[in-house]
């Protein structure tokens, strides 16, 4: 695959006796926001560090634009490490200018780039402060600016949203969407699944070093069992129990909650309910990413 796709191809890594990554494979397409989720220690950070060359893989390959990632390619990646990495005693502006210059920008270009990201991320008043004197949220903004200041062709962000206030989350989301819109593949990890669900085009779920699901959010949820709340006041108890492919989860005065097997038409449930009398409510719940994630990482719904 060419055209600026980031491919992680059967990457494996062992630390001593522990298998950290077992043939991890996924790709991040140009212009796509890819959410990388998994429990703590599942292998997200390890994967990202391998993409950046901070760690060496035992086997497998990382490719960008159809070619194996080399040191030259890595200079075109914007990286936000999980444990933040900046000089604590360096001033915000100096730090960003320095990083831009190390990526081959001239002093002038570097200054322009740094100033514009400082402005964009709301750090203008802090530009002359030492990084160690900033709040954690602001340090994180600087860290994001550091990942973006050299106009990278790929973005790899490890937990970019952790520790941010809601306003900063919005700013960060906008920036990521904007970068993706210019055709940059963006991959980030997060534990804030509602955010991932809202933001990402596709999601990869990793469990114990293995990718257990990788699809768009709707693709992931489409295959899963869906739930319906039915409020039919006149229905006798156990009215839905005999329907094929339907499992009653709860039944009380507020209604009946049933779970449908993936291939069952919800209209059969509605018809059965109407047969008992009037139906006041009929609500279909799409499983959230959080629910999918729970079942995926506990191993129930491993595809």
């Amino acid at each position, binding site marked *: 695959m060419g055209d600026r796709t980031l491919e992680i191809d059967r990457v494996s890594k062992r630390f001593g006796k522990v298998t950290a990554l077992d043939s991890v494979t996924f790709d991040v397409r140009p212009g796509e926001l890819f959410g990388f989720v998994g429990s703590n220690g599942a292998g997200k950070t390890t994967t990202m560090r391998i993409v950046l060359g901070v760690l060496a893989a035992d086997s497998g390959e990382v490719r960008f634009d159809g070619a194996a990632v080399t040191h030259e390619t*890595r*200079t*075109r990646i914007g*990286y936000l490490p999980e444990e933040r*990495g900046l*000089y604590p005693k360096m001033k915000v502006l100096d730090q960003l200018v320095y990083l831009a210059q*190390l*990526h*081959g920008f001239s002093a002038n270009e570097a200054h322009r780039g740094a100033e514009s990201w400082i402005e964009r991320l709301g750090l203008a008043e802090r530009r002359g402060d030492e990084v160690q004197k900033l709040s954690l949220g602001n340090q994180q903004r600087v860290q994001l600016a550091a990942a973006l200041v050299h106009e990278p062709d790929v973005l790899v962000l490890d937990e970019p949203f952790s520790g941010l206030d809601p306003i900063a989350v919005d700013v960060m989301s906008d920036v990521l969407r904007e970068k993706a819109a210019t055709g*940059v593949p963006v991959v980030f990890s997060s534990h804030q699944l509602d955010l991932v669900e809202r933001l990402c085009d596709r999601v990869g779920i990793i469990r114990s070093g293995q990718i257990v699901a990788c699809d768009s959010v709707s693709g992931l949820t489409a295959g899963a069992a869906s739930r319906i709340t039915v409020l039919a006041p006149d229905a006798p108890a156990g009215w839905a129990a005999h329907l094929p492919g339907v499992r009653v989860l709860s039944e009380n005065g507020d209604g009946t909650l049933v779970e449908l097997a993936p291939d069952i038409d919800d209209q059969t449930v509605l018809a059965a309910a109407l047969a008992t009398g009037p139906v006041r409510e009929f609500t279909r719940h799409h499983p959230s990413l959080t629910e999918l994630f729970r079942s995926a990482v506990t191993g129930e719904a491993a595809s």
Partner: protein
Amino acid sequence: MTGRRRTVPPATAVRLVAQRELSARLRTRGFLIGTAVILAVLAGYLLFQANLASNAGRTTVGLTGQAVAVAEPLRAGAQQAGLDVETRRIADPERGAEQVRAGELDALVSGSPANLRVQVKSELDQQLEALLNGISGQEVLRAKLLQAGLNPAEVLSDVGSASVEVSAFERTDPAQGQRLVIALVMMFLLYMGITTYGSLVAQGIVEEKSSRVVEILLSTVRPWHLLLGKVIGLGLTGLTQLAILGAAGLAMASATGVLTITGIATTTLLWGLLWFVLGFFLYATVFAAAGSLVSRQEDVQTVLTPVSMVLLVGFIAGFSVVQEPEGTTATVLSLVPPLSPILMPSRIATGSAGPLEVAAALVLTLAAIAALTWLGGRVYHAAILRTGTRVSLKDALTR
């Protein structure tokens, strides 16, 4: 999308890293205060030396009564003999005696020129005694010559022009004492400089490692460039400080009159700067390798101690080397690469290192730099991204 490739050329990467180190260090309060403190210590030492030199050699002689007439020949004779004698006219002999007892006067001379009497606190300086005897003798001689009808001035001038002819096989350097001072100061500055800036290399590396900024840096810069830039940047900072201290020290020493051999001192300073560069490069990569093994500032001291110890041994050995700079031990020690940068400049300062020895030390040190840079670079390369527990040297070298 721009799509342009923007990898920095190696030279630019090294320059950028070095520049950052320079500006990060030169601007700090630590650098300014450190330089000022060392300068103050240096100035204090020089003033102490100057005071010692001007007071120790000076003899104050009080003249009273007829003895006042010997003031002129006494001063002239003293100058010839290389003595620093100050004469004072004392009106009251009783008070003069008091002053001698109090130590304000070294001697009180009274009586007629032909028959001088000297009062001292405990004993009369032998040279001064000889001088006064001479003056007395000349006075007697002058009187006798007049009695014999001869011109005392002519005869005395003939007598004065007669002297032994001395031919020496070896010349003693009158400035040996000053050379010793220069050698000690230089040795101290080099030891301090290499230790301080070497430790800064290690600390800087641990700072990058503990703050994880190294992960970002190494995604665009190669480890070698990062290491080289750091070493060059800190080396230049150290060199700047040493040059400032050396030049200021030299100026102060010449101004206070402690140093009269400015030429030799300047040469020594230039040699010192060269040896600082060599010594720093010799130790910097070793310090860097040591620093790259640990991830926390608290652990730095443990890994640096063995390296600092070698420098300390050189510094301590330096004191005996300076005492006897021509001995075999001194020669051999100053040729051992890890010790050369501290010991050789001292031997050059004392004027006891031959050109061949200096050349040999330079070649050996350069070879050691090449070897240690290669080794240190390898350790650094292997250990820099391995955070967490301390990386063992064996692990770093076998990977």
